[in-house]
C-alpha cells in the first residue's frame, strides 16, 4: 500500500515536471560544488544543479517504463493469441524467431542501433520494445495453451463459441495477474536498459536520463564530486525499481 501511494506520488511529480517544463538546469560558474542550501545535491562540471537534472529526467524515465511495459506486452499477447489459435505453422515460425532473439544479449543490437540512430526518447522506447517482446510472447503462449484446455473453454467450445469470444471471455481475463507481472518486469528492465544506453553515451545527448547522470559521475571519479554526483541517480533508479518490484504478485516476483 505504501509502495503504491509512493509510486503514485512520483507519477504526479513527473506529470507536474512534464507539464510545467519546470526544472531547466542552468549552467553557472559554481562548478562541482558540494551539496549546500542552494544546491541540495550539489552541482556538476557545468555548474548545473544536480537535483534539477534528476527531476528533469523523471518524466522521460517513467514514460519509458510505462511504454516499454505496455508495448511488448500487447505485441506478445496478440501474437501469442494468434499462434495459439491459428495453428502450427505460424506458431513454429514465431517460436524459432523468439529463439533467435533470446540467444542474443539484448544490449548488443541495442548498442549498434543506438549508435546509428542516436535515439531520443521515442526511438529508445521503440528499440527496447522490439527487443523485449519475445520474452512476453513465450510466457503468454504457454499460459494461453494451458488455458485453452481448461474446462471453461472446453465447455464454451461445446456450445459453439468462436475464437474471438473464447479469448475475450475465457482466456484473457484469467491471464490478468500474469499480464500485470509481465508489465512490471518489462518496466523494470526498460529502466535499466535505457539507463545503460545513456551510460554508454549512445542516446541523444539532449535526452535527460539518469544513466547520463551516472556517466557524468563516473567521469568525476578522481574528484570528490563523485560522492555527491553518484547517490542522486543511483538512489532514484534503485527506488523506482524496488517500488515496481514490490508491486508484483509474490509468486512471479523474481523470474526476471
Amino acid at each position, binding site marked *: 500500500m505504501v509502495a503504491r501511494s509512493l509510486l503514485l506520488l512520483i507519477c504526479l511529480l513527473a506529470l507536474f515536471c512534464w507539464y510545467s517544463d519546470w526544472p531547466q538546469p542552468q549552467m553557472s560558474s559554481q562548478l562541482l560544488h558540494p551539496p549546500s542550501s542552494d544546491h541540495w545535491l550539489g552541482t556538476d562540471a557545468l555548474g548545473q544543479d544536480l537535483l534539477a537534472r534528476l527531476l528533469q529526467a523523471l518524466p522521460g524515465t517513467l514514460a519509458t517504463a510505462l511504454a516499454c511495459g505496455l508495448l511488448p506486452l500487447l505485441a506478445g499477447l496478440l501474437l501469442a493469441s494468434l499462434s495459439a489459435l491459428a495453428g502450427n505453422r505460424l506458431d513454429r515460425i514465431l517460436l524459432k524467431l523468439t529463439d533467435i532473439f533470446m540467444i542474443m544479449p539484448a544490449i*548488443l543490437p541495442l548498442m*549498434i542501433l543506438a549508435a546509428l540512430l542516436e535515439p531520443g526518447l521515442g526511438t529508445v522506447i521503440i528499440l527496447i520494445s522490439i527487443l523485449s517482446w519475445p520474452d512476453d510472447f513465450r510466457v503468454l503462449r504457454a499460459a494461453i495453451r494451458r488455458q485453452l484446455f481448461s474446462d471453461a473453454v472446453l465447455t464454451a467450445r461445446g456450445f459453439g463459441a468462436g475464437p474471438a469470444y473464447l479469448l475475450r471471455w475465457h482466456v484473457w481475463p484469467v491471464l490478468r495477474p500474469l499480464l500485470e507481472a509481465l508489465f512490471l518486469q518489462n518496466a523494470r528492465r526498460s529502466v*535499466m536498459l535505457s539507463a545503460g544506453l545513456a551510460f554508454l*553515451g549512445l542516446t541523444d545527448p539532449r535526452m535527460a536520463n539518469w544513466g547520463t547522470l551516472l556517466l557524468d*559521475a*563516473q567521469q568525476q571519479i578522481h574528484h570528490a564530486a*563523485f560522492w555527491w554526483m553518484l547517490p542522486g541517480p*543511483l538512489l532514484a533508479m534503485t527506488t523506482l525499481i*524496488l517500488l515496481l518490484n514490490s508491486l508484483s504478485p509474490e509468486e512471479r516476483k*523474481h523470474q526476471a
Partner: protein
Amino acid sequence: MRGETAQTSARATALRCLRPVLDNLPALATLLICSFLLLHSLPGSQADALLTSDLGVAVTAEDHTRLQARLGLDRPLWQQFGSWLGGVLRGDLGYSRLYAAPVAQVLADTLPWTLGLVLVALPLSLLTGALPGLLAGMAPQTGGAKYLFALVTLLSSLPGFVIALLLLSLFGFTLGWFPTGGGISLEARLSGQVTLADLIYHALLPLLALSLHGSVRYFYLAWGLAQQISRRPFIRYARHRGIRGAGLLWRWYLPNAMPELLSRLSSSLPGILGATLFVEVVFSYPGAGALMLDAINNRDYPLLQGCLLLTGGIVLLGNSLLDLITTILTDRG
C-alpha cells in the same frame, strides 16, 4: 539384428547431440545477414570514402563508377553478400582504420580477455548465487535468510554497470586495494612479461562485479528450489536423523537442485555477456566491450561488424556447447 539396433541407437544419440547445434544455425544465419546489412545500409559507400580527400582532386562520375566496379559495389546485393561471407569464412573481416590493422587481428587480441571474464564469471555466479540461495531457502523463516533475501533484492535493483562503478570507486579509488583499470599493469605491458598474479589482480574486481550481477537469478532460483525440496519426504527423514547445516546442504539439497541449476547456465550466457560489455567499459578492461564502444564512437564500421560477429559467435558457440553438455549428461540411453 543386435548390431543393427546398436547402430541405429548410436545414430539416434548422435542426432540428439547434434540437435542443439543445428538449432543454433538459423540464429547464426541471422547474425551473418544482420552484420552484413548493418555495414551495407550505412550512409556513404566505400567508394565515397576512398575518393574523398582533402586535396580537392576533381572526381568525375566516371572515376566513381570505375571504382565501384573495382570494389564490386555494382553487383547485386546477394553476390556481394556471397563474397563477403567467403571472406568471413577465410577469416578476412576487413580493415580497421582506427587501429590500422586487419579487424581479425584486433579481435584476436581482445578475445582472450572477454572470453576469460565470461568463462570464469559464469560458474562463479552460479556458485555465489546458488549456495547462499539454497542455504537461505532451507530455512526461509530465520532472520539471516530474510536479511540475505533483502540484500539480494537490493542487488537485483542495480544494473551491472552500477555495481561495477560502486566496486571500482570503493575498492579501486577510495581504499586503493585494487587497480583502477586495465588488464595488466603498466610495467608488465612495458616489459612484456605478464604474470598470472598480475592478471588475476586486475581481473578480480571485474569478475566480482559480474558474479554479483549474475548471481541474483541463481539465488532466487535456488531459493525456490530449496523450498520445493524441503517438502520432499527424504529431507524430513534426514532432518529426523539429526543431519543439519552444511552436510544437509551438500549431500541432500545440492544434488537435487543441481540439474535445474545447470540447465539455466546456457540461458544466462547472453545476460552475462551483455553485462561483461558494460563492466569492461567501466574498468577500461581491454576486451570486446570496450573495443565495441571505441568502434561506435569512432564510426569504425568494419570493426563494429567484427565485434558483433565475435560476441554473437561466442554466445552461439557457448550455447551449443552448454546444450551439448546438458544433452550428454542427461542422456540415459
